[in-house]
């Protein structure tokens, strides 16, 4: 039971860290990195809740979700970086 608890902590920690950084930083690259960390945190929390401590196996459907999440994340990150390069890294929102 404790393994997925540990990774729940890790996931929640990553999410909190990312949200904190999103709220406090102006630099474009740092914001993109924070969004990546946030996505990874969410995937970790998702997989941890799909992990069955008794059998030691994880429900394949959340694994598919995590995989899809990773691929979506890399494409959005590539788009964000392409845009960030052209506006000189200063995001003004």
């Amino acid at each position: 039971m404790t393994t997925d608890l540990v990774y729940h902590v890790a996931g929640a920690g990553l999410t909190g860290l990312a949200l904190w950084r999103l709220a406090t930083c102006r630099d474009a690259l740092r914001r993109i990195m924070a969004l990546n960390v946030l996505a990874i945190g969410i995937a970790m929390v998702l997989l941890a809740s799909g992990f069955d401590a008794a059998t030691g196996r994880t429900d394949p459907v959340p694994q598919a979700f995590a995989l899809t999440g990773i691929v979506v994340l890399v494409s959005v990150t590539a788009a964000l970086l392409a845009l960030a390069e052209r506006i000189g890294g200063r995001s003004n929102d």
Partner: protein
Amino acid sequence: MTEASLIVSLPLLAAVVTAASARVARPVGLIATAANAALAILLARRVLAEGAQVTHLGGWEAPLGIAFETDGLAAVMILMAAIVGVAVAVQASDDRTPRSATDPGAFWPLWLATLGAMNALFLSADLFNLYVTFEILGLAAVGLTALTGTRRALRAAFDYLSAGLAGSLLLLLGVALAYAAAGQVDLSVVPALTESAQGRISLALIFAGLAVKAALFPLHFWMPAAHSSAAPVASALLSALVVKAAIYVALRLSLDGGIGAEPLRVAMAAAGAGAMLWGSWHALRADRLKLLVAHSTVAQVGLISLALGVAPGAADSTLWHAAVLLMLSHAFAKAAMFLAVGRIAEELGHDRISGLNREELRPGAAEFAFAVAAVSLIGLPPTAGFVGKWVLIEGLIDRDAWIWVALVFAGTVLSAAYLSRVVSRCLRGGPHVAPGARRPQWRAGDVAALGLAVSALLLGLGSALPFALLEITVT
């Protein structure tokens, strides 16, 4: 080949073809948009004739596989996207649009991807699938925003994409919590979610993500810059369609959630009221046409989510039909308005409101289309906006919810105020215009804007059709 599967895959295929070769982009794009409109009509006819259908993709039953639910609401939304799409495609096909810094043929793949994503979103009955469709929609919409290639547009596109990604991740967090709480992620799980505490938190997270993507009041900061700096064709699509997808999903969840989703609805109604006042206030003070229309989108999105929030959760209540009709009328009118603004800015060379009454230019068809679109945005009869507000206020009076009635009227008055600022300048004549002033000659953009504006006007007369469609739900 059922219409549902075709209407979802055709735009994606066309997007690939148009992305592959810029030379063939325009004709293929036009044909695909027209074919999509035909398919949408066929789909609506099938739903009217045979009632709602559920198609399981790959033959796998609901919790394991993904299901398409083509009920009345989905058919109406697909029709909306198709018709607005045709008009926008007509304006985009007018090849004299200014040579943007980026590849001019790039509009078509992005537009067709948006269309395909929206059709998939309206049909999907699975929370995670909604997340993925939102991602396509977000990326394609950002592409449309960055179409002009100016530094301001790229900055707005970056803010839009980072806000959109944050919204999607909130949505994904909600879906993950829904999976953790209820073990599955298709829409049939929503009623079960409303009981448990975790379920309610997951719904709250999902609604927060949707609020960011729908630019609902507290989380709308990215939207005015994005919609006002994009190319007029793109901002027409962004304001009229892309924003609606998030509201549609909120409506779908509130319907499935039934009574349990009451606190979320109250939050939406409150945010909606705030958006109406905030959006109208900024629209009143906007100095540029595109900014005014973008802020009016914030206000109208507020009105729609207010209509959605006050609709009672009871299965039999039909007050949410008013919200759908308001969405329809806003989609048509706002798209017409942005196309008209595009044409006006093209003729005048700028879009400052103060500089609207230029000496040597007589008001043309675009100004008239703007005025007609303004009428249906304000919600005066015989437009669909009026019928939507009528049904909404009648429902509210039945429940003696007088505060909401007052708010809806306040919204109407404010929208009349900031729109008449512009429309009065559209009716210049007499001493303002030099005798030899030329009248801008008709272009594809005028036809599209006028067509959409008049259809928004006449939709009020024909609103029996959407109401008939909305009656059909998956039993």
